[in-house]
């Protein structure tokens, strides 16, 4: 009996110390930010029903999207290599093939009309001071502008894969991969690094990646971090709310709000875990953990029986 009281005292002080150090004290190091479930409540609601056919004409024509963006899914190839595009725009403009599946419709609608507003980078791109966002806003093609924007968004949704078909890798590459490298996935801002037979080709490619990164540094102020280990260095809630709105965590940051859907954000986080902590993502840790626990339990039972056997004579 006395032994249990002693155990209770030890457990009490150990748990108390743990609770005070970890949940209590560690929890105060970052301010608490609530998730808004990727509702983007600050953006105006979409009121018009879009027509994909009309949208295609606008995207390819008056909207001039395809002047900068590739749309591989609909036969519009990229006009420049990523490093050259980054040199021109600061960052390689995204391919729009799956934009309709990964980004929120409300966000896309606002983005087309006013990129700096939707991306929450108006502190950086203020037309009054002459700093224009590299993406030119759509000023309308002569008709009802809201209808035209709705048509373009409908077109983007019509050519994209179904949202359920978006893989975690696609979500990451689209939403994050043009600014962030991920070296554990063999990924740079230029895309997946190919295998080269000759070292000089590998070095040439590497030099191009460095050029891209230099353009990006000029555009963003610093090189955005490699995300390989972010699944371990930041917690899930932080990453999720950061993706939802970087300004809430890091006021004034150059990182834009990327406007992914809740599902898109989940997939990005899944990808970070798959790349940064695969033994957790693929279930190995849980599975082997269970085996080890079962072993330990059996060991404890035998240890107890042995102790009882030996101590029989001692009492």
């Amino acid at each position, binding site marked *: 009996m006395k032994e249990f009281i002693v155990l209770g005292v030890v457990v009490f002080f150990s748990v108390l110390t743990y609770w005070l150090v970890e949940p*209590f004290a560690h929890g105060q190091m970052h301010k608490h930010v609530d998730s808004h479930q990727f509702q983007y409540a600050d953006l105006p609601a979409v009121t018009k029903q879009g027509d994909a056919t009309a949208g295609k004409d606008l995207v390819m024509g008056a909207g001039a999207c395809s002047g900068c963006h590739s749309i591989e899914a609909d036969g519009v190839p990229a006009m420049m290599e990523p490093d050259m595009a980054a040199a021109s725009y600061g960052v390689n403009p995204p391919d729009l093939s799956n934009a309709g599946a990964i980004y929120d419709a409300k966000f896309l609608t606002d983005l087309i009309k006013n990129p700096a507003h939707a991306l929450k980078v108006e502190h950086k791109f203020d037309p009054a001071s002459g700093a224009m966002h590299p993406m030119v806003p759509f000023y309308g093609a002569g008709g009802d502008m809201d209808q035209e924007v709705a048509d373009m968004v409908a077109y983007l949704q019509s050519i994209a894969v179904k949202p359920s078909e978006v893989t975690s890798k696609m979500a990451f590459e689209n939403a994050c991969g043009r600014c962030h490298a991920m070296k554990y996935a063999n990924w740079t801002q230029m895309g997946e690094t190919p295998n080269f037979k000759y070292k000089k080709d590998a070095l040439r490619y590497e030099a191009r990646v460095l050029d891209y990164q230099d353009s990006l540094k000029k555009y963003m102020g610093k090189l955005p971090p490699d995300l390989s280990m972010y699944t371990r260095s930041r917690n899930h809630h932080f990453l999720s709310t950061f993706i939802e709105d970087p300004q809430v965590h890091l006021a004034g940051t150059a990182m834009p709000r990327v406007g992914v859907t809740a599902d898109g954000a989940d997939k990005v986080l899944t990808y970070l875990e798959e790349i940064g902590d695969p033994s957790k993502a693929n279930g190995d840790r849980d599975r082997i953990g269970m085996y080890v626990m079962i072993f330990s339990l059996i060991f404890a039972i035998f240890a107890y029986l042995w102790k009882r056997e030996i101590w029989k*004579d001692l009492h």
Partner: protein
Amino acid sequence: MAHFEKANSIGEWFDQRLATKTLERVLAKEYWIPKDINFLWAMGMVLAITFGILLVSGIFLLMYYQPNVDTAFDSVNYTIMQEVGFGWLWRHVHAVAASVVFLIIYIHMFTGIYYGSYKKGREIIWVSGMLLFVAFSAEAFSGYMLPWGQMSYWAGMVITNLFSMGSLEMNGVVEWIRGDYVPGQAFLTRFFMLHVLLIPVAILALIGIHFGALRIPHVNNQNGEELDYEVEAEKYKSGNKAASKVIAFANDFMSKDMFVVAVYLIFFFYLTFWNYSFAMDPVNFDPADGLKTPAHIYPEWYFLWSYEILRPFSKDIGLLAFAFAQVIFVLLPWLDRSPNAVPASRRGLFKYWFWIMLANMIVLTTMGKLPPEGINNTIGLVSALLFIGQWLALPFVTMFEKKV
């Protein structure tokens, strides 16, 4: 050449050459342990097992770790965690064991203080134990440098800076320790050497002394009762085990130890697989960057109390207080002036001294982690002063204690 008979069995063959039967008798069968003990007496074995786990997992990690500032981070987080089969398991086992070992050390230490097991012939046990604490601290710190993450780098920066001795500005000493102006390749390689060779060797030697020092004064018991080991051992050997107040180290004591170890392992593996972030700080998963100081730099949980004794004071006073906190535990057997080696519950004022010390160290630990702002600073300062005050008061608290 001594005379050797032909051996009749393998056991006898070894006994002739290594005196294995004598060894078994001296180290196990007739190494007497008091019977009146509780599970806290198994903490030594729990520590030995944990050290074994650290040693074995460390050997596995050593096969893939690269002590190079350019590759260290990736060799840990990619090579070991992703490419090597079960590398992640060994790394988690190593990291969690390195943290949990301090929990057990603290339990072991406070058990010793509570039961007065540092007095009356047990001084060397106490001092060697405290030296082990210092060695384990150095081992933990040097190991923390190896993944070369942000916390490695900045903790390395902060801790080595302490050696400039405040206003003495002995920056040459700091550079000498680092082998550079800032933590770099020379720094990483030497802490790698310390972690995998010099300090483990020192720990092994200290463990030998710690165990050896136990032999003559024997292990304490729950009531601080003085035993006549020869009389009790005779009772045991004559078959009257139930009446004897002693038990044999093996298998009597060992069987209980192993049960405690088994329960501990369940707890340990639960942490290893499902609750490890307390031992693997998220900040250290960002690669070291000398141009980017993390928003908060804090030590691992087991150093927080002494960190908080450094922090609330001005530079020089803080360093003195910190140095005081590092050495004062070693002097415990001499600061305690009482003639009693019995549990704190039977020792008058010391009973309160003990529980206040324990509670205050938990407060210090908490404050060491909280951001140093507002009320936290005041609480931290009061706690640090209380800690120092308690130690200064200890001789007076114990001086007038009556003999029980």
